[in-house]
C-alpha cells in the first residue's frame, strides 16, 4: 500500500512575524522557512506505518513555488521514498490544493493520505477535509492515535474533539489529518540527508494536472493585532465598576 503525505513549506514557528508595510501579507524575504510542524508529524506517522511493514512506500507531496523543493528534501531526509512537487506560484488556497491532490491521487492511487491538521501560516484546517470530500473517502481528522489493520483494510483513528477523544474506524482508502499528540517526529540524520539528494522528485504543474487554481477568495489586507494596552491600577471598587461600565462596556 502506498501512503501519500502532504508537506508544506511555512515560516518557521520560532521566527518573529512581521507584516509587510503595504499590508498585503507577511514578510517572507530573508525569513527562515521550515516544514509545517503538523506535516512533520504526518510524515513521521507514515514512516512508522511503513516501518511496521504495513505500507510499501511513502510519497511526500508539496505544492508551492520553486523553493518548496527544500521542504520535500527534508521529508526525503526523514525517510520518504519519493517526492512530488507541484510547482505553482501565487497563493494556493485549500480548495485548489485539494483539487491538485485529487488529480495526484488518480495518478498515484495511494491507500492512505496523511496530512497535518492545519498549516501554521494560514491556520485554515480545511485541506484534509476537502481532499476527503472530493475523493469521497472517509476522514479521521485531529488524529492522536492511528492503528492500521492491513488484513481488514481498516484504520482506527482516535480523534481529539472538544468533548474528549472519539474513536473512528475508517475503511481504506482514507484521509487522516494529524494533531500534535500523535507522535514525536524523528531527526534527519546526516547519512539520510546525503541519501535524500539522490531520491527521485517528480515535478508537475497545475496545468498538467488539469486543475484551475484561481480562487474565489482574495486577501484584502493583513494587519498586526492591536498592541496590548497597559493595564490600569484602580484605587477602589467603585472606580472598577465605573470603568467596567463606562469604558469597557461589559456591565
Amino acid at each position, binding site marked *: 500500500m502506498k501512503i501519500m503525505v502532504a508537506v508544506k*513549506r511555512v515560516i*518557521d*514557528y*520560532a*521566527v*518573529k512575524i*512581521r507584516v509587510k508595510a503595504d499590508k498585503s501579507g507577511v514578510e517572507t524575504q*530573508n*525569513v*527562515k*522557512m*521550515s*516544514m*509545517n*510542524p*503538523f506535516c*512533520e*508529524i504526518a510524515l*513521521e506517522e507514515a*514512516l*512508522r*506505518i511503513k*516501518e*511496521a511493514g504495513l505500507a510499501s512506500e511513502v510519497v511526500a507531496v508539496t505544492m508551492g513555488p*520553486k*523553493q518548496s*523543493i*527544500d*521542504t520535500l*528534501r*527534508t521529508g526525503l*531526509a*526523514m525517510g520518504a521514498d519519493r517526492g512530488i512537487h507541484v510547482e505553482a506560484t501565487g497563493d494556493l488556497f485549500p480548495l485548489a490544493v485539494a483539487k491538485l491532490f485529487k488529480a495526484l491521487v488518480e495518478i498515484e492511487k495511494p491507500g492512505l493520505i496523511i496530512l497535518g491538521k492545519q498549516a501554521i501560516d494560514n491556520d485554515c484546517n480545511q485541506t484534509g477535509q476537502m481532499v476527503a470530500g472530493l475523493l469521497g473517502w472517509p476522514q479521521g481528522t485531529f488524529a492522536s*492515535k492511528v492503528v492500521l489493520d492491513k488484513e481488514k483494510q481498516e484504520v482506527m483513528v482516535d480523534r481529539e474533539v472538544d468533548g474528549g477523544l472519539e474513536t473512528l474506524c475508517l475503511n481504506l482508502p482514507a484521509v487522516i489529518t494529524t494533531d*500534535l*499528540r500523535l*507522535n*514525536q*517526529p*524523528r*531527526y*534527519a*540524520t*546526516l*547519512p*539520510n*540527508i*546525503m*541519501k*535524500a539528494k539522490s531520491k527521485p522528485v517528480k515535478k508537475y504543474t497545475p496545468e498538467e494536472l488539469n486543475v484551475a487554481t484561481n480562487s474565489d477568495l482574495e486577501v484584502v489586507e493583513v494587519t498586526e493585532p492591536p498592541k496590548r494596552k497597559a493595564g490600569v491600577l484602580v484605587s477602589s471598587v467603585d472606580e472598577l465598576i465605573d470603568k467596567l461600565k463606562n469604558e469597557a462596556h461589559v456591565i
Partner: protein
Amino acid sequence: MNRLVSFRSKSRIGTTPCSSSFYARLLGSSIDASRTRSTANASDSLATVSRCSSLVPARTLTGSSLFGSRNGSSARLSNLTGHGGSQGVARRFCSDAAAERESMEYDVVIVGAGPAGLSAAIRLKQLCGEKGVDLSVCVVEKGAEVGAHIISGNVFEPRALDELLPEWEKEEAPISVSVSSDKFWFLTKDRAFSLPSPFDNKNNYVISLSQLVRWMGSKAEEYGVEIYPGFAASEILCDDNGSVIGIGTNDMGVAKNGSKKENFQRGVALKGRVTLFAEGCRGSLSEKIIKKYHLREKRNAQHQTYALGIKEVWEIDESKHQPGAVIHTLGWPLDQKTYGGSFLYHMSERQVAIGLVVALNYKNPYLSPYEEFQKLKHHPAIKPILEDGTVIQYGARTLNEGGIQSVPYPVFPGGAIIGCSAGFLNVPKIKGTHTAMKSGMLAAEAAFGTLLEGSNLDSYWTTLQNSWVWEELHKARNYRPAFDHGFIPGMAISAVEHYLFRGKSPFTLKHGKPDHEATNVARSHSPIEYPKPDGVLSFDVPTSLHRSNTNHDHDQPAHLKLRDPEMPTQVNLPEYDGPESRYCPARVYEYVPEESGQLKLQINAQNCLHCKACDIKDPKQNIEWTVPEGGGGPGYSVM
C-alpha cells in the same frame, strides 16, 4: 540563493516542531503526556534508524594512506569498536569513535560555516579544480541554516573576497551599499562632538554579514562542498597518537535528565584527514584544542581579550535613511574606565544597524552592557534617527580584541584553527571578516599541500605571517592595549601610534589582566540604576530576545555547565552580586528565590544566543559553554 537557504533548514527538523517547547506553547501543558506513548511502531522505527546504513564507504583518495603523507609514518586509527588503549589524558580530551556511532569520512572537515570556514572550503575546491584533483570537503554548522548564527557590524573590506571570488559583484553577492560617509563622535550625556575619523572606509561596503555568508554558502555548494547545518560538533576525535582525526556531532533527542527520548539519534563521527576549526570567537572546541596542545605557550602568546557586541537592525523612516552612512562613537554611555563604543551603519532598504561594543575587562560587576545599549539609543544625536522606526532583529556576540599578541599557534596535529577562533580581528579598524576569510584561504592552501604533496601543515603559520593579515595586525597591535591604562592615555598613545609611528613603533604593549580577573568585587561599587525601557526606543530583554528568533528544544540537558555547581551561590552572588545576571544579553542567568528564601542560580538555557560572554567573563571561570543540540540558537538573517 533563497532556495539554498531554505534547503539547509531541512536538517533542522525534529528540533523545532516536535520539541516539547512547541508542544507546551500550543497546549500549555506538560510534554509528558505526549511522550508516554511509546508504541511498538516507535521502537521499531528507532531500531531501524540506528541500524540503517552502517559505515558509509570511506572516501580516501586512492593511493594515499591516511596521515601517511603528513608525518611520514602511518598513525593507526583507533578502531571503531571504541577500543582506544590511549593515555588517560587523550581519552579525557578526545573521545574514541564510539561503538554504535556511524562514521563518515572526508578529506577535510570544517567546523563552522562562517566567513573563515566557507572561505577555506571554497579555496580547497578551487585548488582542486586548478590541479585537476578532487577532495571531499564537509562543513558542519550548529545553526539551523548557514548564516543563522552570523552577526557582525558590518563595514566590509572586500580585500579577501576580491582574492577568493573576484566576480562577486557579477554573481550578485549581497554587497551593494558603498560607504558614503564616515563620522566619528565623542558623546557626552547630551551632546555629540565630531572628531576626525580614524578610519579609512573609502572602498568598503555596509553589509549584513549573515546575508553575505548565506551567499558564500550557496557558492560553496556550487563548488561541491557539502554543508550540513543543524549539526553541532561537540567532540573532538583523536587517534592513539593524540592527533585529531575529526569531530563527533551531538546526540539528538536527549532529555533534560539525560535519558534518551523517543526520537533519540546518536551523533555522527565526521572524520577528516585534516580538520579545520572555524567556530568564531571563543569557539568551544577550539578552546579545548588550544589548551590541549598548548598553542598559546607555543608562541608565547598572551591570553585573548574580548568585547561583547550587542546589536539591533532597525527599519527607519525613509527621510532619515542615508545608505552607506557610517557613524562610530566613543564616550557616553561608557565611563572612562570602560573601553568600548557604538556603531550605526545605514544599510540598504531603509535598514540601519546599531550596536554597542563593550570590552569585557570592565571592572564594575554592576555594569550591564545590554542596559548601556538601551541608554545609548536615547542619546539626542541617535534618537532622531531611530524614532518612528521598528526593530527587525536583535542579537549579541563576543568578539576578539587581543590582536597579534593573543593569536595562538594555529596548527596542531591533525588540523588548524582559522578565523576568529584564533583571533585575527583588527581592533582599531574594527574589522575581522576580511582577515578571517584570508586565514581560511591560507589554511586551505596549506591543507591542500599536506593532502596532495605531503607538505607540513605548519606552512599555514608561515604563510600567515608573510601575508597582509599579519602586516595589518602588526600595525594595529598597540591601540587596544593602550586603553588598559585609561581613556586619556589610550587616546594619547593611539594618536602617537597613528600619526607619529604609523604602525612602526618599536614596542609592543601587553594586555592587562584576563577579562574574568578584571571584575572587582561588588562591595567596591554600587548598583547602577538603569532607566526603564520605554518600549519605543529601548526594550526589556525578553522583547529583544524574541527578535533574535532564538529557540532551543527545551527538553535537553542544559548546555551551560557549571564546573562547581555551588560556586554561584558561594562566590558569584556574595562576592560579585551575580554579574552573569547582568552581562548575559539573553537573560539566561537569573537568581531566583527558592522556597526557603535563599537565592539560587536558574539557568534558562533555552534563551542562549551563543555569544560566549559567560564563558569569558565568569569571575572564577566556572561557567563552561558547550554546544547544545544542533539547529538551536538564534536565527539571524539580516545581522
